[in-house]
């Protein structure tokens, strides 16, 4: 699956990226993570950062869920 982490580089955005990577590695999910830091690109999707986009759909925004919760979101 295609995962995008949207954020301009604030601490929360990094935390979300790390948590997502951890969830993927733990559950050996086949996914491709890209980071989107360009504000014009982010604005096309959401105005609340950080956000997590899975296969074109926003699943999380404005918060950093726990690795457990992310696992649930990604394996659904």
């Amino acid at each position, binding site marked *: 699956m295609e995962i995008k982490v949207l954020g301009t580089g*604030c601490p929360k955005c990094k935390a979300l990226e790390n948590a997502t990577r951890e969830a993927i590695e733990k559950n050996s999910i086949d996914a491709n993570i890209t980071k989107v830091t360009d*504000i014009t690109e982010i604005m096309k999707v*959401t105005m*609340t950062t950080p956000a997590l986009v899975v296969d074109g759909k926003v699943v*999380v925004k404005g918060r950093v869920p726990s690795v457990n*919760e992310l696992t649930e979101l990604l394996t659904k």
Partner: protein
Amino acid sequence: MNTKIFKSGRTRFVILLLPLWFLTYHFLQPATDWITDDLLKLTKGAHFTETFRFFIFEVPKVMLLLVLIIFAVGIVRSFFTAERTRKALEGRKTFTGNVMAAALGIVTPFCSCSAIPLFLGFVESGIPLGITFSFLIAAPMINEVAVILLYGLFGWQTALIYVVTGLFVAIIAGWIIGRLKLEKWVEPWVYEIQTGEQDENLEKLTFETRIGMGFDAVKEIVGKVWLYVVLGIAVGAAAHGYVPEEFMASLMGKTTWYSVPLSILIGIPLYSNAAGIVPIVSVLIEKGASLGTALAFMMSVIGLSLPEMVILRKVLKLPMILTFIAIVGTGIMLVGFLFNYVF
């Protein structure tokens, strides 16, 4: 699912912790006195004793307040999103819009790194510049940490005065910025931003998730400010015990008219967070600084911060930033003079 047990465990954890919180808070004063007078047998009224007593009472008290209220605010904020706030502000008339924007600025989750996307989102959906600014002024200035510390160290009256005058400054300053028609001072690329279909109800948050967000808020904010609180109270405690009464009266008293504008100017580059500044200001007042001057100083330190200006420079031209500082600064000054005059 073991995640479910984990989550409901957190709710149970909160129910268990609440009575413990109230007990600790209730017995803090007697416990402090017992440690100071009976356990350590310090001489009552001596400089060191009173400094010590102040410190070991205020630090746990403020920490307890911070944890409880930030937790509650974290849950309240889970009901507000920038998208919802924007929707509420769309198409509002000038004055009503300013009032709503300032009020929503208090409850909408906001950090300095979300200022730009928020600004872009507001402008894109046609919310007037003045209303956007009412939001951008209120959001950082009236934050929960400042209000909790004011409540803890000054009492609820001062906390309320701070919130009300902060709202007033945000509403009026935003309204004036709107009247001045300063759109030409917004960077042109801002108006070229295209936003896509942003679906609103993507997440149905459960109660457990909201409790979790409360916990996250506590971890994040208390983790960030606790050191400033301890340091601020330590400086405050030392001054409380050792600096003579009325020491600040000549410098920051109400009879020196220039004390208000001077404190605001000093406050702009001083970017301490609320956690560090409020305990120090509380002692300034105790030593003779007037409420108006102290209030103006605090609003300037918290509300007009240099790092935020640097961030906003990406979307606003320099004259706009300077106008913004001038208008908000004048508003704060009026508040300062008013309180020096009334009290």
